[in-house]
C-alpha cells in the first residue's frame, strides 16, 4: 500500500507534467525503499528522488527532481543553478573601486563570495572577479568551489553570473548584482543638522570621530567593529589591528557610529590615523573589511600647534650694517632637517624692534624653517620699510657661506621665501613684493618667483592698494585683532583699513581675525594699546593672541611649504566649530582661491554688472527681500553709528579706491520677513559633480538694529536648485555661524566694530546627500533668510559667491 502511494506521489510531483524518465539522457531510478528505515520522519535524497520518510520509517512521499532545473538537496528539489554565499552580506554587493585594479594585495577593496559547487562565471559592468589565489578569472571560465573575490576598477553597476558548470542543469545562472562606488570617507564628524555628517580630515579634542557606513547598505554582519589605528603606508591582508587607539567599537550597519570620543589635544600637529571596519571581528584586516587609509590617512589629529616642533633651535644675531641687522633662528644642527629649508623673513613695525618676535622665530625654526627678524626702517614710512625687507633678504642670502661659520650654507632654499610684516612692516612686505614683481626693484639674490607667501599683521595702508600695496598673485595672508588701538581697522582713517589690501590680491588669500587682540599682542613688548580703546568686548591679552598667531601661522607655513594641505582646514572651516587646540577665542577666518583659475567658478563677486538683478557672471539675481543693496564696501562716513541710509556702514573693504574698489551685497531681513535671494548658476557650474564646495563670504553689519537684536551668531539657509525645481537646503550653522561684530565702542554711538567677514564653505557632498537633487543640472544657488532657515533677523554683507573645485590652494 505504501509502495503504491509513493509511486503515485512520484508521478504526481512532476512539476511540469513531464516524466523525467521521458528524457532520453536522464534515467531516474526509483528510490531505495529501505532508506527511510533508518531515518523516520526525515527528508532524504536518493539521486533525483526527494523523499519524505514517515515516522514509521517508510517512504511517505517522493518527488522526482527535474534534472534540467533542479537537484535534490536535503530531501527537496532545489534550483540547480549554483548557490553563492556572501559572508556578512545580503543578496547584492556594494564594492569600493580600486582604481589601480582589483588585487588580492588590497583585500579591503574586495568582497569575498563562497561558491559551494562548480560554476561558469561571467561578469558585466566594471566588475572584476579574482580566484582564491588572487588570479583574475576570465569571463566564461569554469571555476571550482571555493572563495572568489569581487572587485571593480571603476564606478558603476554590474553583475556576476554563476551558471551551472556540469550535468544536465539548464537553470538560469545565479545573478549577483554589484554596485561599484568610489571609496567614501569612513571617518566623519556628526553635525547637528542636515546633512548630519561632514568628512573633513582634521579632528581636534572637541570632536568625536565617527564611522559612516551609510553607503554600505548591503552589509548584514552583526559582528562588525571599528578601529582607529595609526596610519600605515603598507597595509596588507592579515594585518593585526592590535595597535588601535580606539576600538574595537561595535558599529551600526548602514548608520553612523561614534568611535573615538577622546581625541588627544596634547600631541604634535597632524598625527595621521586610519580607520578599519572589521567584519567578523577577528582583529585583522581581511577581504571584505573596510579600510579608510590606503590612499592616505583617514584622518589627522590636529594636535597642539602652539607647542614647539621636533627640532632644537639656535638663535644668533647677524649684522653687516645698521639696517642689515637681524636675529637668525634655525634648527640646530641644520642637518636634522632633510633638504634645504624655507626662509621666513619677519619685518617689524614702527616703534617695534627686531628682537621682539622670538615667539614666532623660535616656533617656526622648531618646525624646520630658517627665520630672520631684521631691523626695519619704518620711521620714514612703508616704502622705506619695504626696501629694508628686500635688502635684508638679499643680505642674508648673500651672507650664508660665511654667516655663523657657514653652518647654514646649503640649508636655506632661496626659492622658497615667506615675508611676514607687522604694521608698517606689514604694508612694507606687500610693497616689497609689488616692487619686485613689477620689476621696479631687482634684488641680487632672489626674484619675485622666490617669494612664495606674503603675510601682514595689522598692516597700515599709507600707499594706494590699487597700485602699490598689492599682493598681486602671490598667496597672501592677513592677521589682525579687533582690539587694535593703533592700526585699528576703523572706518575713520584710510590708512588703517587693511582689508583693502586683501581685496586687491588676485592670488589665494587667507585671513585670521582675532577678536580681542590688540596691535602689540603680536610682538613681545609693545605698549598695551588696548588701553587706548573702549567697549565691553573681552581683551584677550598677549598670551592668548600669540597662541592664535603661532597656531595659524604654523598652519599657514606648513600648508604652504611642507605640503601639509590639511592645515588649510584651519582657514576654510568656520572657527566656531573648528579651531586649533588651545585657541578658545572668537575668530573670523577666510580662505579664497586665486582669481581666474580653473579651480573655481565665480557666480557673483559683485565687481561687474552693478545692477543688483544681474550677477557678475551674467546670470539673473532675484530676491523676495526688500532690503537689498549692491555697492562698494566702503563705509560712507567716518562713523560706525547706525545710519539707515548707509547699508555699508562698518565696511572697510574699500575706501576711495576708484573703479576697482571692492563691491558686495547687503541683505536685510526682519522678524517675520522670511525671504530669499537667488543667483542663476552660469553654465560652467551647473554640473556640480566633481566640485568640492559652495563658498561665499559673509559678515554681520555692525550696530544695525537687527544685529543688535540678534546679539549672537548668525546663519541662513544655502540651497542648490536643480533644473526640475528641486531645492536642497543646508543651514550653514551646522558648519559654524557668522560672528557678531566685536563689542567695541568709539567712532560714534553704539557698540560693535568693523565687518568681520567669514568664509562659509558648504561641501557639495552636503547637497548631494539629498538623492532627489540632480547634481548634473544645478541652475541656481538660493540664499534663504529668516527663522525657517536660520537666524530670525539680521543684516549681512555678502561677497564672492563661488563654486570651488578640488585642488591645492597654492604652492
Amino acid at each position, binding site marked *: 500500500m505504501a509502495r503504491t502511494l509513493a509511486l503515485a506521489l512520484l508521478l504526481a510531483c512532476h512539476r511540469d507534467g513531464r516524466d523525467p524518465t521521458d528524457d532520453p539522457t536522464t534515467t531516474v531510478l526509483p528510490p531505495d525503499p529501505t532508506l527511510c528505515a533508518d531515518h523516520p520522519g526525515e527528508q532524504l535524497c536518493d539521486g533525483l528522488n526527494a523523499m519524505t520518510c514517515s515516522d514509521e520509517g517508510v517512504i511517505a512521499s517522493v518527488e522526482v527532481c527535474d534534472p534540467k532545473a533542479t537537484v535534490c538537496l536535503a530531501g527537496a528539489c532545489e534550483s540547480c543553478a549554483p548557490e553563492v554565499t556572501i559572508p556578512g552580506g545580503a543578496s547584492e554587493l556594494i564594492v569600493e573601486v580600486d582604481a589601480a585594479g582589483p588585487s588580492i594585495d588590497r583585500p579591503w577593496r574586495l568582497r569575498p563570495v563562497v561558491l559551494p559547487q562548480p560554476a561558469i562565471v561571467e561578469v558585466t559592468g566594471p566588475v572584476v572577479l579574482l580566484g582564491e589565489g588572487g588570479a583574475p578569472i576570465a569571463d566564461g571560465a569554469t571555476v571550482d568551489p571555493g572563495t572568489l573575490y569581487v572587485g571593480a576598477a571603476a564606478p558603476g553597476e554590474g553583475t556576476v553570473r554563476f551558471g551551472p558548470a556540469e550535468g544536465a542543469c539548464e537553470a538560469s545562472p545565479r545573478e549577483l548584482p554589484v554596485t561599484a562606488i568610489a571609496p567614501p570617507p569612513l571617518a566623519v564628524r556628526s553635525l547637528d543638522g542636515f546633512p548630519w555628517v561632514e568628512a573633513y580630515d582634521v579632528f581636534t579634542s572637541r570632536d568625536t570621530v565617527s564611522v559612516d557606513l551609510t553607503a554600505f547598505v548591503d552589509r548584514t554582519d552583526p559582528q562588525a567593529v571599528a578601529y582607529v589605528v595609526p596610519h600605515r603606508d603598507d597595509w596588507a591582508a592579515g594585518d593585526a589591528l592590535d595597535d588601535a587607539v580606539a576600538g574595537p567599537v561595535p558599529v551600526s550597519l548602514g548608520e553612523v557610529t561614534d568611535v573615538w570620543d577622546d581625541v588627544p589635544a596634547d600631541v604634535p600637529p597632524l598625527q595621521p590615523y586610519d580607520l578599519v571596519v572589521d567584519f567578523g571581528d577577528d582583529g585583522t584586516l581581511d577581504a571584505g573589511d573596510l579600510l579608510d587609509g590606503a590612499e592616505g590617512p583617514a584622518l589627522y589629529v590636529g594636535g597642539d600647534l602652539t607647542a614647539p616642533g621636533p627640532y632644537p633651535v639656535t638663535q644668533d644675531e647677524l649684522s653687516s650694517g645698521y639696517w642689515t641687522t637681524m636675529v637668525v633662528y634655525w634648527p640646530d644642527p641644520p642637518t636634522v632637517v632633510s633638504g634645504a629649508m624655507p626662509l621666513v623673513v619677519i619685518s617689524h613695525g614702527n*616703534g617695534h624692534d627686531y628682537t621682539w618676535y622670538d615667539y614666532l622665530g623660535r616656533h617656526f625654526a622648531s618646525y624646520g624653517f630658517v627665520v630672520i627678524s631684521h631691523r626695519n626702517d619704518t620711521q*620714514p614710512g612703508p616704502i622705506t620699510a619695504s626696501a629694508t625687507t628686500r635688502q635684508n633678504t638679499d643680505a642674508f642670502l648673500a651672507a650664508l657661506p660665511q654667516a655663523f661659520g657657514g653652518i647654514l650654507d646649503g640649508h636655506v632654499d632661496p626659492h622658497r621665501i615667506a615675508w611676514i610684516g607687522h604694521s608698517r612692516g606689514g604694508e612694507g612686505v606687500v610693497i616689497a613684493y609689488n616692487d619686485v614683481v613689477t620689476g621696479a626693484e631687482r634684488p641680487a639674490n632672489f626674484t619675485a618667483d622666490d617669494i612664495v607667501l606674503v603675510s601682514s599683521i595689522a598692516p597700515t595702508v599709507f600707499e594706494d592698494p590699487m597700485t602699490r600695496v598689492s599682493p598681486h598673485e602671490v598667496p597672501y595672508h592677513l592677521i589682525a585683532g579687533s582690539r587694535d588701538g*593703533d592700526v585699528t581697522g576703523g572706518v575713520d582713517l584710510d590708512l588703517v583699513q587693511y582689508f583693502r589690501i586683501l581685496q586687491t590680491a588676485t592670488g589665494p588669500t587667507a585671513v585670521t581675525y582675532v577678536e580681542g587682540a590688540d596691535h602689540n599682542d603680536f610682538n613681545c613688548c609693545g605698549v598695551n594699546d588696548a588701553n587706548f580703546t573702549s567697549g565691553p568686548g573681552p581683551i584677550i591679552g598677549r598670551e592668548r593672541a600669540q597662541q592664535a598667531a603661532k597656531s595659524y601661522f604654523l598652519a599657514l607655513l606648513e600648508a604652504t611649504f611642507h605640503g601639509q594641505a590639511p592645515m588649510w582646514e584651519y582657514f576654510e572651516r568656520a572657527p566656531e566649530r573648528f579651531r586649533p587646540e588651545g585657541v578658545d577665542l572668537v575668530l573670523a577666518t577666510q580662505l579664497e582661491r586665486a582669481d581666474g583659475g580653473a579651480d573655481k567658478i565665480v557666480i557673483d563677486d559683485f565687481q561687474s554688472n552693478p545692477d543688483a538683478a544681474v550677477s557678475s557672471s551674467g546670470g539673473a539675481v532675484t530676491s523676495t527681500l526688500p532690503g537689498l543693496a549692491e555697492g562698494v564696501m566702503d563705509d560712507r562716513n567716518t562713523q560706525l553709528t547706525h545710519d539707515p541710509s548707509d547699508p555699508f556702514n562698518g565696511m572697510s573693504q574699500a575706501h576711495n579706491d576708484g573703479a576697482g574698489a571692492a563691491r558686495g551685497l547687503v541683505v536685510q531681513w526682519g522678524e517675520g520677513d522670511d525671504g530669499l535671494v537667488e543667483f542663476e548658476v552660469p553654465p560652467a557650474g551647473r554640473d556640480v559633480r566633481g566640485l568640492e564646495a559652495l563658498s561665499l563670504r559673509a559678515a554681520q553689519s555692525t550696530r544695525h538694529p537687527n544685529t543688535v537684536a540678534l546679539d549672537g551668531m548668525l546663519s541662513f539657509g544655502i540651497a542648490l536648485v536643480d533644473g526640475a525645481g528641486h531645492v536642497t537646503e543646508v543651514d550653514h550653522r551646522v558648519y559654524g555661524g557668522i560672528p557678531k561684530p566685536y563689542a567695541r565702542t568709539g567712532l560714534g554711538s553704539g557698540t560693535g566694530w568693523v565687518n568681520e567677514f567669514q568664509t562659509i564653505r558648504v561641501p557639495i557632498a552636503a547637497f548631494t546627500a539629498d538623492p532627489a537633487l540632480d547634481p548634473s543640472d544645478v541652475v541656481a544657488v538660493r540664499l534663504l533668510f529668516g527663522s525657517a532657515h536660520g537666524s530670525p533677523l539680521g543684516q549681512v554683507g555678502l561677497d564672492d559667491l563661488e563654486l570651488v573645485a578640488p585642488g591645492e590652494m597654492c604652492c
Partner: protein
Amino acid sequence: MLLTLLLLLAPARAQAPEIVWARPFTLAQPETWTMTASPRPFTEGLLVELRVDPAVAELREGRAPALFLGGEPLFRFNGDRVGGCVVGFVPGPVDLAAAPVFVGPATLPERLQADEADNAARGRPALPVGDVKAALAAGGAPLRAADLRDVQREAMARVAACSATPEDHQRAD
C-alpha cells in the same frame, strides 16, 4: 587754593621740547638718510636727547606729527611715552644754536620734500642758548663711529638712563 583750582582748570599746554644732551658724530662708512623724499648719503650728524610731551614721544604706526630738529625730522631710537625722553639724530653738521626743535607736520618722512621741511622750521625760535651749551657740554667730544651701529649703542645707553617706558628698556637691552 584758588590758584590751584585755576591751574587745574587751565587748558593743558603741550610741553615745549627741551634739549638735555647733544653729541656730534662722524661715520667712517657713509649711511643713507632716509627720512626724506630724496634720500642722500651722510657721514656726520648730531645725536640728541630731548624732553618732550610724552604724548608726542610715542612712536605709533599711523600718521603722527614728527619731531623736527632744524630742517630735518628727527630719527628716533626710542619712544618714551611715559617720561617724554627722546633720543635721536639728524644728519649733517648742525648749528644747534640756530636749529629749532619742534613738532612738525604729520607727513610721512619719506614723502617729505626739502622745502616742506624748511617751511616748517622757518620762523620758529631756536633753543635757549644756555640749554644748547649745557647739552653739548654734557655730550662731550664728537663720537667717531664706524657706522650707525656705534651711534645706536651710544643712543641706547642714553635711553637706558632716561626712559621711563618699559619697551624702551627692552630695546636698550
